[in-house]
C-alpha cells in the first residue's frame, strides 16, 4: 500500500485547531461537510470587500464586476462537470436542486409551462422509481410528488453489501416516468453503475435524476457522458462555502420546464395578470442569489482542478483501503457496505454490536476524532441492514494515513471501553 498523501492539510485553517482539551483534530466527517481551504475563504472575502453588488440588475461598475464573477463561477462549474454554461442552475444546496426538479414536474402537472411542459405531466398510473439507498433528499421529494400527483413510488432494493441490486432493476418499466438514484451512497460508499440504470430508464423513456452529492466532490464526473437528465450536488461537500449548490439539467429539458421559485431576476414581462419567464438558467434563479458563495465555489473548483480529481480519487481510494483493512483488525465490527475498496468512496459506515453509535462517536470524539453518528439522513438504507443507526468515518482531500490510523486506534478504545 503506497502512501498517496496529497499533504494539503496545511491549506485548511480549521484542521489546525484542537478539540477536547488540546487533542489534535482528526476530521473524518467530510461526507457530512468538507472543510474549506484558505483560497476559498479568501475568494469569498475578496468578493465581499471589492465586488459585492446586485447581479444582473445594475449598470454601475461594481454591479458589472459582481455579475462577471457570478457568471464566471457558473462557467467553471460547467467545465467541471462536463455541461454547457446554461445547463448549470445555482441552488442553495443539493436538496433544493432535487426539490426543484420534483416541483417543476408538479407545476407542469398542474398545467403550468404550456404545451412545452406537457412532457413533464404526471398522472395516476405513472411510476417514479427511487432506491433504498437514497439520502432522504432524493427520496422524500419523490414521495411527496407521488402523493400530490397520484403517481406510484417504487424502488430498487439494496444488496447485502450495500449496492443497488440489479435483480430489482425491473421495477423500471413502461409506466416509469422518473428514475431518481444516487451516484454514490453516503452510507455504504458504493458507487452506482450509472450507465446500467440510465440505459434501462432510457429504454422506457423515463427521465433520470442523479444525486451527485457525494460523487461530484470526490470523483471526476461528466454528466453529459453519463447521459443523465438532471443531477444535483452541494458546494459545502466539495470545499466550497455553505449555502451554494448546483442543479444540472439537460439544455432541452430546462428550456421546456416551468419555473419553481418565482420572483425577481427570472421574469421577462410582468403584469398584474400574468408573467413571462426568462430562458434557463435565469428562469430557475429567483431573487438575489448567493453571489459571494459562487465566488467561493469558483475558487473551490479551481483548487480541485489544480489538484486533479483523478489524483484526489486515487488518494481517497488508498485511504478507503486502509480504513477497511484497519476496521477488519478490530473484532466484531460490521461494515455496512462493500468491504473491499473497488467502486466505492472513502465513506465507511459500520456497526459495533452492542454499542450504540452515539457512544461510539463519543469515545472517538474524546480522542479528537470527529465522525458522524446516526442514520445519516438515510433511514431506509439503515433499515435494509437491520440497524437503526451507525457510525460513519468519511475522508477528504486533507486526510492522511495518520488520520486513518488514529481512527482505528480510537475504535479499539471504543471496544475496550464498552467491551
Amino acid at each position: 500500500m503506497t502512501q498517496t498523501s496529497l499533504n494539503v492539510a496545511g491549506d485548511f485553517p480549521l484542521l489546525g485547531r484542537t478539540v477536547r482539551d488540546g487533542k489534535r483534530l482528526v476530521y473524518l466527517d467530510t461526507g457530512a461537510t468538507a472543510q474549506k481551504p484558505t483560497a476559498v475563504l479568501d475568494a469569498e472575502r475578496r468578493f465581499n470587500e471589492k465586488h459585492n453588488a446586485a447581479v444582473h440588475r445594475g449598470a454601475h461598475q461594481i454591479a458589472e464586476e459582481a455579475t462577471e464573477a457570478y457568471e464566471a463561477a457558473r462557467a467553471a462549474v460547467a467545465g467541471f462537470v462536463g455541461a454547457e454554461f446554461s445547463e448549470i442552475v445555482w441552488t442553495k444546496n443539493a436538496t433544493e436542486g432535487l426539490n426543484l426538479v420534483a416541483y417543476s414536474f408538479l407545476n407542469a402537472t398542474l398545467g403550468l409551462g404550456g404545451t412545452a411542459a406537457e412532457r413533464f405531466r404526471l398522472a395516476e398510473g405513472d411510476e417514479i422509481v427511487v432506491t433504498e439507498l437514497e439520502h432522504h433528499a432524493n427520496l422524500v421529494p419523490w414521495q411527496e410528488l407521488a402523493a400530490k400527483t397520484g403517481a406510484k413510488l417504487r424502488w430498487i432494493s439494496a444488496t447485502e453489501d450495500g449496492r443497488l441490486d440489479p435483480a430489482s432493476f425491473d421495477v423500471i418499466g413502461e409506466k416509469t416516468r422518473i428514475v431518481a438514484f444516487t451516484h454514490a451512497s453516503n452510507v455504504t460508499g458504493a458507487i452506482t453503475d450509472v450507465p446500467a440504470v440510465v440505459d434501462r430508464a432510457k429504454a422506457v423513456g423515463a427521465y433520470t435524476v442523479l444525486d451527485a452529492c457525494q460523487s461530484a466532490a470526490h470523483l471526476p464526473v461528466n454528466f453529459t457522458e453519463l447521459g443523465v437528465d438532471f443531477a444535483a450536488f452541494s458546494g459545502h461537500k466539495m470545499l466550497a462555502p455553505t449555502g451554494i449548490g448546483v442543479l444540472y439539467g439537460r439544455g432541452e429539458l430546462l428550456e421546456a420546464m416551468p419555473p419553481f421559485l418565482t420572483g425577481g431576476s427570472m421574469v421577462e414581462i410582468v403584469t398584474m395578470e400574468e408573467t413571462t419567464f426568462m430562458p434557463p438558467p435565469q428562469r430557475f434563479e429567483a431573487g438575489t442569489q448567493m453571489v459571494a458563495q459562487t465566488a467561493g465555489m469558483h475558487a473551490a473548483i479551481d483548487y480541485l482542478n489544480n489538484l486533479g480529481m483523478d489524483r484526489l480519487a486515487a488518494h481517497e481510494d488508498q485511504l478507503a483501503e486502509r480504513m477497511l483493512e484497519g476496521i477488519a483488525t478490530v473484532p466484531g465490527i460490521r461494515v455496512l457496505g462493500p468491504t473491499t475498496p473497488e467502486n466505492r468512496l472513502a465513506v465507511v459506515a459500520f456497526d459495533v454490536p452492542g454499542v450504540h453509535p452515539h457512544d461510539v462517536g463519543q469515545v472517538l470524539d474524546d480522542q479528537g476524532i470527529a465522525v458522524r453518528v446516526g442514520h445519516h439522513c438515510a433511514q431506509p438504507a439503515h433499515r435494509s441492514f437491520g440497524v437503526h443507526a451507525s457510525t460513519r468515518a468519511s475522508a477528504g482531500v486533507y486526510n492522511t494515513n495518520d488520520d486513518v490510523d488514529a481512527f482505528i486506534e480510537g475504535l479499539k478504545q471504543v471496544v475496550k471501553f464498552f467491551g
Partner: protein
Amino acid sequence: MEQLYQQVILDHSRERSGEGTLENPAGQSFQVNPTCGDECNVQVNTAEGKISELAWTGKGCSISQASLSLMYEMVDGEPVTEVEELGETFRELIHNRGQELDPEKMDQLEDLGAFTGVGRYSARVKCALLGWMALRDALIQAQDGSKEGSGE
C-alpha cells in the same frame, strides 16, 4: 470519558429497570430523537395523585437507556407533583453545561446526579431527556384522562 460514563450510567444501560408495557395505560408518549432515530415509549397510570404503574420500551444509546431505567426507579410510585418537580430539576442539571446544581438540588436528584457530565456535550442533552419528555407528556394525558373521568 469517565466523567460522562459514570458507573451508575453504564450499569443502568446494561441492567435496565422498568422495561415493558402496560395493558391499559391512561397516558403514553412516543418520542424520537431525529438525529439518530432513537426512540422510546413511556406508559403510565396514576391513582390518588401518584404514579401507580409505569413502563417503558425504547432503543437508544447508553445515556438514553440509563436515563429511562433510573427514571423508572426514582419515580415509580411517587406523587405526580414531586415527579414533575424532579423532572424540572433534572432538566436544569442537564442544561447546566456539566456543572452541578446547588447541593440541595443535587440531594434531591440522588443517583441522577451521575448525569451531570452529560451537560458538557450539547449533542447528548436530548439523549438524557428523551425519557423525561415522554414521561411529562404521558402524565399530562393520564391526568387529563382522570380529570375527565372524575367529571363524568
